Structures are given as structure tokens and as C-alpha cells.
């Protein structure tokens, strides 16, 4: 592999998050290094998705600090996270159902577009130029994900596996430096999983994108991630390279207890 893992770019310190009485996350700290693939695993309801939501500001933790590229703050704002280069996919597909594949992926580039609505209304120089430029970038993403044939299809008509791919496309279109993936392979068959794995590895390898990944398939996780953090009932019970984590007694207990 050509990439080399760099310094810490995201550092989460003592994050706690509650919903009413439910403690979703309790005092969790871990970090993510540049260019690495960092997996978060744990049984259902462990707080994995909540963790991603804290990272890009969908949820605001009651305690703790988030340090991203040296900037410390108590909470992120989602659009802020986006402009700083964090993109993301969701556990339950969150595509824009009323739009085509192409339009969905184009939205991924919204933050990079400068023309204002008046220019759009009149379709003046810059609006038109931008549309073409960004379309070109989006077509690259479409080629990369091999979804040329469904470009103009409304996403709601696509099968599940393809929807997941389009959602990845929308995130990639933003050319993020950090990509948060929430169970990108859930509900896929073996072939689809292999494709998705390949895409993730390629993105990481060729573009150097840092990836934070939630995945239930242990085979995949152990194969592709550099380091793994393990959550259970909102607490961190393990953190390290795959081999370390695999042999961590607490992790084994949690997984056996949860019936895995």
C-alpha cells in the first residue's frame, strides 16, 4: 500500500451523551489518525451510531471535547463538519428519495458551489460553468462506483444494495478528508459486500481518505481496519489493532454475552 498513516487528526475526549435517562455514551475517549481505517464495533445498541453522530455534530454530547485538526470544541455543527471535510453515510439509508441518482450525488458538491440563487435563476455564466465542472467530478464518482447505468433513475426505485452505493457516492462527491461509514455492508449479499470492501479500500488507498467505519461483519472488520475500538453499553471496552482486540477477554465476553 502506498499510504502511510499520519498524525492524530480527530481526538475524542471523555465524551458522554444521554437521551433523557438513556446513557448512550459514557466517558469515551479515542483518536483517529490521518489516512487510517478505524473501525467501531460492538453489540446492538452499544452506541456506535451515536458516536458517529457526535463526530459530525448530529448529536451534541453533554460532556467531553472534540478536537478536529487541532481545533477543540464541545460540539460540532453538521454543516460545519461538512465544510471541514467530514462526509458520512447512514445506517438507515438517508438518500433524498424524490431525486435521481445524479442529483443525489450532485448534492454532495453543494458546499463547493459558489453561484447564488439569482445566478441560478438567470442561468448566468458562473452558474452554468459550475454546473458543468461539478458534473464532471460527479461523473468520475459515478464511474468509480460503476453506477453509470442508473444515473437518471430516481433513487427510490433502486434496490437496497445500490442505494447504499449511491449514498457512498454522495459522500465521496464531497471529496472528504474523513469519511464516516455506518454499517455500509449491512444487508448485502457476499458479492455486494466484496464490491463495497473494494470501494472502501480504494478510496482509502488512492485518495488517502481517513475512514471511520462501523461494521458488524467481523471478518471484514479484522481484514480491512488498521485499529478497532469496541463499545458495549455505551462504554469503551477495547481499543487497538485487530489482533489485540480479538484476544481481549472483555471483548470476547461482550460478544459471547450478546450471542454472537
Amino acid at each position: 500500500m502506498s499510504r502511510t498513516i499520519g498524525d492524530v487528526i480527530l481526538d475524542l475526549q471523555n465524551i458522554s451523551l444521554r437521551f433523557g435517562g438513556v446513557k448512550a455514551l459514557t466517558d469515551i475517549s479515542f483518536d483517529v489518525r490521518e489516512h487510517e481505517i478505524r473501525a467501531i464495533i460492538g453489540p446492538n445498541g452499544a452506541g456506535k451510531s451515536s458516536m458517529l453522530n457526535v463526530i459530525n455534530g448530529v448529536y451534541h454530547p453533554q460532556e467531553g471535547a472534540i478536537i478536529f485538526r487541532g481545533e477543540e470544541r464541545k460540539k460540532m455543527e453538521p454543516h460545519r463538519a461538512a465544510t471541514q471535510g467530514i462526509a458520512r453515510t447512514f445506517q438507515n439509508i438517508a438518500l433524498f428519495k424524490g431525486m435521481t441518482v445524479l442529483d443525489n450525488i450532485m448534492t454532495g458538491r453543494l458546499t463547493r458551489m459558489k453561484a447564488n440563487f439569482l445566478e441560478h435563476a438567470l442561468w448566468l455564466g458562473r452558474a452554468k460553468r459550475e454546473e458543468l465542472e461539478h458534473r464532471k467530478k460527479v461523473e468520475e464518482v459515478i464511474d468509480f462506483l460503476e453506477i453509470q447505468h442508473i444515473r437518471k433513475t430516481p433513487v427510490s426505485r433502486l434496490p437496497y444494495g445500490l442505494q447504499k452505493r449511491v449514498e457512498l457516492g454522495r459522500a465521496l462527491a464531497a471529496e472528504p478528508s474523513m469519511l464516516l461509514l455506518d454499517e455500509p455492508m449491512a444487508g448485502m449479499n457476499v458479492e455486494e459486500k466484496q464490491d463495497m470492501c473494494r470501494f472502501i479500500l480504494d478510496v482509502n488507498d488512492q485518495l488517502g481518505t481517513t475512514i471511520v467505519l462501523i461494521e458488524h461483519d467481523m471478518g471484514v472488520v479484522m481484514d480491512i481496519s488498521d485499529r478497532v475500538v469496541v463499545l458495549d453499553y455505551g462504554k469503551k471496552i477495547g481499543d487497538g489493532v485487530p489482533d489485540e482486540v480479538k484476544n481481549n477477554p472483555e471483548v470476547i465476553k461482550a460478544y459471547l454475552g450478546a450471542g454472537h
Partner: protein
Amino acid sequence: MRFFLEVLISGLLSGVMYSLVALGFVLIYKASGVFNFAQGAMVYLAALSVVGVMEKGAPLWLAVIVAFIVMTLFGIATEKFVLRKLVNQPPIALFMATIGLAFFIEGLAPMVFGSDPRALDIGIVDEPIEAILNRWGMVISKFDLAAAAIAAVLVTSLALFFQYTRIGRALRAVADDHQAALSIGIPLQHIWAIVWGVAGFVALVAGMLWGARNGVQFALTFTALKALPVLIIGGFTSVPGAIVGGLIIGASEKLAEIYLPPLMQSAFGGNFGGIEGWFPYVLALGFLLVRPEGLFGEKHIDRV
């Protein structure tokens, strides 16, 4: 001060009537997630069917029974032919469908029962209570008091019904979680039909009270517009919220009607009557600023 109290009390009493209409909204929203804009039209339909049947020579009690049957059948039909077909549509589509439903009723009901305004006599007169008038010199309407009492009884019995009967518990369960409701063993469709029946009953009571007070006429449909700000203040899912919201709106609206126009007149000149059309809405928006989830609603964070 006496005058202020008089206004306040009559405001609170008419607020109870707002609560009654709001209650119809809350019941349906809780059980099926539908924001039923047709609630006002249902009030109109109920009142019209009572006077319509009475015109044919039936006594009041019979007319009420007939109207109740009409409302229940209507509710079941709505559930079966409209809402069930829209199950997987976004809530806003359901809402718009109920606007269509309101128009449907507003067109159909007067064709069946006649459209000219009529009086409805339910045996309570609208005159001041003498004891209060003599003792404190305040004008409090007998009718308003009786109406408030009836509404209070209805609300209490509904609350008890929800709390202590099997169907009531099932209804609450549906509100929380459709799967859980299924496990109680009552089909969802029955539950919805029952809810629409109950909402029809509430509309009937509201229609008779409002109709007896202001005459049975098209304007009864506007009771829905009175109830919407109540819902905003109380929250869409809370029965106590509907009651407290109704009281707040009723009282503040009456007070504003009396005290605001003179103030505005001295500021701008001219005549500023008729603020009751918008005042409750602006008040409700003010409330939203402070408590977006309503007085009794719970804060909700979208799950992703």
C-alpha cells in the same frame, strides 16, 4: 378589577370549548399520527345532523343518537376508504387529505341536512347566573358554565377510558408503538375505527354546545381554526395539554380583545377590533419560541 375577572372567567369558560375541539385532534393524532384538519367540519356535520333529524320531527335524544351513529359510520368510512390507503405516505400528505375531507363534508352535509343557519335548543339558556350577578355584580353565563361542566366531564371520562380500559390501553400503545399494539391482540384497523368513532363523539358534543350557543351554521367549521393554536401550545399528543392550552387561549384571547384594541387605537388611531382571528396564532408562535415541543410534549431528537 371586577370587569377583568368577568372577562377572564368567561374567557376560561369558552377556552374549555376550544379544548373540546382540540381534544378531537389529539385523539386522532395520538392513535394514528394523522393531523385531522377535518375536525372542524366534523363538528359542523354533527351539529347539522342533530338539527336536521330534529326538523323531521324527532325528539332531541333520538336526534343525538342518530347523529352519533352518523358520526361513527362516517369515522369508520374515513378510516377505511381514505386513511388506510395512505398508510405509507408522508404525514403531510395525510394532512392534506384531511383538508380534502373537510371540503367533502362541507359540501355534502348541507346538501343532506340543509344549509340555512338554525338554532339548536338543548335546554340550557344563555343568561347570567343571578347569584353571581347579585353577589359580585359579574355577568357569568349559565350556558358557558354548563358547557364547561359538560366538557370537563367528557374530558375526565376520556382520560379514565384511556387509563383503565383495555381498548384505552391499546390506544395508548398504538400511539407509542404500532408493533406493541399488535401484540395486545386488537387489530390496528379496529383501533383506528374506534378512535375515529370517539373523535366523532367528541365532535358531536362540541357541535351541540357550539351550535346551541352560536346557531348551527357553516361558521362551526371555524372551530377547527380556534383549536389549532391550542394544539400548538399544548402539544399535539397531550390530553392535559389540550385542556391547559384551551384555557390559556380562551382567557388571553378575551383579555386581548378587550384591552389591546384601545391601546392600538391610541397608538395608531383607527379601529382595531377583530383581533381574535390572529391573536391566538401569534400567541402560539410566541410559545413555540420558548417551548418548541409544546407545554406537555417531550423533546425529541431525530434518530439517524
